[in-house]
């Protein structure tokens, strides 16, 4: 009887821990899936930020930084551009998001997620664009300027648009799993 209770408790604990890991595993899948019907001007929202924001807000800057690095490593392995990396942007966002406090008003909190993710997406997009610019500096870099600006702006808009829905749900899930663990 005691052993049965203990195994049940351990299973519960394991599942609660898994909740955030399962959602973490889904990020590269969604990143690869790239559903066109969710896009705007052929651009997708920057998916990893939706997970990174709630994770960093709950677990702090250092955790955010580490998981930003992990996400960057996974996503870089999925994209073919060897010369450019998403790691700096995600590390910086993870660290930055960890320093953000929860807001008392739920509604304001929702919109805050949108704004924060938009800013994060702008940051990541700009850092990525800077790498492309530096790499192609000798070539015709001005040609890349307009499509890249379009990419950044569309990504910022979409990330900010979807963040309030996705981030608040993930935040609730992570809080729930944390409470269960304690």
């Amino acid at each position: 009887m005691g052993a049965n209770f203990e195994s049940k408790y351990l299973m519960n604990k394991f599942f609660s821990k898994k909740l955030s890991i399962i959602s973490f595993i889904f990020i590269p899948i969604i990143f690869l899936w790239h559903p066109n019907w969710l896009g705007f001007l052929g651009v997708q929202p920057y998916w990893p930020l939706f997970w990174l924001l709630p994770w960093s807000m709950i677990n702090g800057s250092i955790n955010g930084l580490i998981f930003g690095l992990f996400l960057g490593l996974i996503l870089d392995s999925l994209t073919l551009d060897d010369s450019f990396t998403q790691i700096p942007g995600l590390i910086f966002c993870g660290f930055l998001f960890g320093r953000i406090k929860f807001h008392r008003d739920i509604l304001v909190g929702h919109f805050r997620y949108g704004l924060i993710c938009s800013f994060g997406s702008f940051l990541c997009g700009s850092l990525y664009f800077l790498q492309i610019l530096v790499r192609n500096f000798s070539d015709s870099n001005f040609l890349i300027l307009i499509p890249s600006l379009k990419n950044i702006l569309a990504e910022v808009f979409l990330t900010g648009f979807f963040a309030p829905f996705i981030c608040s749900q993930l935040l609730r899930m992570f809080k729930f799993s944390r409470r269960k663990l304690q």
Partner: protein
Amino acid sequence: MLGIRRISTNRWYKKKNWILFAIFLFLVFVRISKGSFYKDLYYFISKPFWPGQFQKEIVLESIDQEYLIKLNLLKKDNLRLRQILSLQESSNNQNISAVVISRKTGSWWRQIILNKGSKDGVEIGNIVIGPGGLLGRVKDTSLFTSSVTLVTSPESKLGVWVDRIQINGLLVGLGDDYPSLILYSKDADIKVGDFVSSSPASTLLPSNIPIGIVQSIDETLKSKKTAKISLLAKPHVIDWVQILKVNI
């Protein structure tokens, strides 16, 4: 019995005189509109039987057949000439058909993932073509999949050939749907509508693979001319592709 019949035959128009009035109004409308209603109705009814439509289909089919025959003759001719010049040739036996299972054609990353990998003999550097022409090159393979860098990717730089003016250029992806053609000659007489194919001098691609058409030209630079290229193969809609296993 007779009485009943008489009553029913005599009074039907009195009961339904509003129908008569409606028909009258309709006929007045037809008269005023000079029969346009009937003409339009006839247009739709007779549309499937128009002789012009049928003839057009026959003519188009004949043109298709003619082009196919011409294409085959030219292929044979090309093969013969290449053999005479001792150039390398490509064979259709080495093509692998594959399905696009992941597509990133917007944003920064311009790549597709195919359902054929090293298990099926796909190698890094193989050429991927779709309906229309060149899509990109295989950059990475796993056991079951292969990742293709599209021509539109900022990582992609390919040697191309503008057939009309017989000049080589460099096709550079910019991260949008229209890669840029750079011609390192200010005097190059490139025009909108010029056809761009893979260069015979390229070390990455086999020659004569259709790529795109010049859409606009930018002449603001001093030492070179650049042009935007509209690709013939559209990576955002193509589901089936061919992987060419060609040694250049």
